[in-house]
């Protein structure tokens, strides 16, 4: 489905592009195009430099990184940093990846389920109090994390859920932003199929599962990617909840590691590169869906 949408979009672009030369002001147009690409490329380089620099730095030796003035390209590229951190017994990377993956994946699955279901209900059902309830859900987005984190922490202490990954997962099961996104997306899906399925005697759950859910794919991919990224990179709440090294997630370990090795940015950078890889993979897999997913929601 993505491919057809993509192809259609590209065809449309090609069509517009093909017509361009026939438009007035051709020369000015070519010039302004060139300027456009130049500006975008310059900005793109600026945006990319710190990221690229992180990757390059992970292949430099510690002494090269301490050099004054600094170098940009590694003078003597080395994989030592990676072998060092992969063999560091103080840095059990496999375990920490597992913790982070458990949290991110569980939350993604739960959020996709609850958001699509609630978004569907808010978009396609008429019931008393729908509007105020939806506004209530939206309003919860305005509650800063800092307000709830103190009582939340005290509750975790009482439940003995400190140092437990469920302490990160449980509060994230329902996501107001996800409900909002799904509902907006759902509004663009016509009702006909749903009503005809009803006429055929399908149950409400069945309609959700076999008619609604398949059509939500772009929105699910978008929300899934954003949720994964958010929880993979989450910092404040895991910092408060996870106090035991073996239970911690990647960003916490990353700061811990960085403060342990402030003098060895080469290692810190290698660790940072390893930590961003899973997000890059998820992004690469969902990338083509994201813009489509957002396009079809009411964020326009």
């Amino acid at each position, binding site marked *: 489905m993505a491919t057809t949408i993509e192809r259609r979009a590209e065809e449309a672009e090609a069509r517009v592009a093909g017509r361009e030369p026939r438009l007035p002001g051709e020369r000015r147009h070519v010039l302004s195009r060139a300027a456009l690409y130049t500006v975008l490329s310059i900005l793109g380089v600026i945006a990319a430099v710190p990221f690229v620099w992180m990757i390059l730095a992970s292949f430099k030796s*510690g002494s090269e990184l*301490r050099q*004054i003035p600094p170098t940009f390209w590694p003078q003597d590229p080395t994989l030592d940093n990676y072998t060092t951190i992969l063999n560091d017994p*103080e840095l059990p990377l496999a375990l920490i990846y597992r913790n982070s993956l458990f949290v991110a994946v569980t939350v993604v699955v739960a959020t996709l389920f609850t958001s699509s279901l609630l978004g569907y209900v808010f978009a396609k059902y008429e019931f008393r109090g729908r509007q105020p309830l939806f506004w209530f859900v939206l309003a*919860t*987005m*305005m*509650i*800063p*994390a800092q307000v*709830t*984190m103190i*009582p*939340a922490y*005290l*509750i*975790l*202490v*009482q*439940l*003995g*859920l*400190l140092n437990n990954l*469920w*302490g990160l997962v*449980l*509060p*994230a099961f329902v*996501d*107001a*932003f996800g409900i909002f996104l799904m509902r907006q997306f759902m509004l663009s899906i016509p009702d006909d199929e749903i009503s005809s399925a009803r006429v055929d005697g399908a149950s409400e759950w069945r309609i959700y599962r076999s008619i609604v859910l398949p059509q939500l794919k772009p929105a699910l991919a978008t929300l899934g990617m*954003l949720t994964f*990224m*958010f929880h993979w*990179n989450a910092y*404040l*709440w895991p910092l*408060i909840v*996870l*106090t*035991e*090294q073996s239970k911690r997630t990647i960003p916490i370990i990353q700061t*811990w590691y960085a403060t342990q*090795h*402030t*003098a*060895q940015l080469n290692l810190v950078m290698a660790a940072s590169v390893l930590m961003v890889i899973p997000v890059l993979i998820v992004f690469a897999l969902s990338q083509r869906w994201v813009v489509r997913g957002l396009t079809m929601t009411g964020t326009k």
Partner: protein
Amino acid sequence: MKRPVMRWQAIGLTIVLFGSACTFGSQDSGGGGTAAPDEPVTLRLWTHRNKSFNTGLKDLAAEFKTANPNVTIELETFDYDSYIQTLQTALPAGTEADILQMFGTWTCSYADNLAPVPADVSTVEEAQATFFDAPIGGYICDDVLYGFPQEFNIEYGATLVNTTLAEAAGVDASAGWASWDEFKADAKAMTETRDDVITRAGYHFTAADGLVYTFFSLILQSGGQFLADDGTSFTIDTPEAREAFDLMMSMVDEGIIDPELFNDTANWVGDCYFEEACAMGLVGPWVVPEYATDFPEVADATSYVALPTLGDTPDFVADSGWGLTVSANSPAQNVAWEFIEFVTLDEENAAAWNAATGTLPAQRVNAEGAAQEELIAEYPHFEAWFPILQYGQYVGNLPDRDLLWYEIAYPHLLKALQGGESVDDALAAMESEANDTFR
């Protein structure tokens, strides 16, 4: 991130919440339990995470088990930051372990939930005779003893000296310095600049701990005090404090250090020294093993040299040290004390732990004779510290030591050295803010 973060919400079901709320802080902390002899006992021991500390304790626990087969000690470790957090919430809730590793300075703020040392284990006087004043000071709250230190935590008294850099600058620091002027001249000789910017600082003392310990220690050396005898008020705006300030300011003025480029967040002293961006640096001896594997050459060239003094004796402020205490909720306090006695009061075991962890001894006997020689053989950089241990004065049972150190003293001292605040204002502000912590 863009997603408004409404997920940091509470955990838990209402039922559990209101059910458990009933146990909130209502623990009875009076029940001192005793376990019958020979009954199998498992004691939990909480400690902060530090590889050599933890291994040292595990070894002693194993040894203890061979002597007392019925007792098992289980270590549970926490990262330093979260350990504080865990203690602060667990103790009032009564969910802590039987034996708690404490940093001496914290002990008194938890005293309500800790068990006093039984008189047959040790009295206050006996403990004061056994341990140096500074480390034991943290374990005595209102004349009641709550535990014993394992180490002497020290941050002031000697400075790291990079002998290679010293030699290159024509400086011989091995004999120490007779006066601050001599010291400053050598530090200046080791300072390097490029286009008037310091690229290598002569003496880095402007990290948070370094600056605060320097300030308070210099006050003591010039014959002053900052904490009233009854421990309920601060007097910081004194002539002695001004003398301390003048000395610190002179090092900035003479270009040995630039407090804007070298402080706690920029070029922290440990990093700065081992990266050779500082020739000398003020930080306790624990720092050397931390960097030795990554910077072996600098570590080899490192020696600690005692700093000059402002008065006659090298008095300094010290912060107690790590040690062991017992929870008032423990059902087997007698066994817990037996173990602590075994670890901290036994001279040989205490010395073995110091050797295993690279810490300075808390016990007076272990700072002399064979125990001292053994430690120096393994940790040559300890040598300069032994002669001054006896001059350490415990900082006192402050209401909130971290608050005084990092939110009050350090910011004002640094700001004054950077020229953003006058010395008068800094002293006055420190005094009033410090006294506010007694509220």
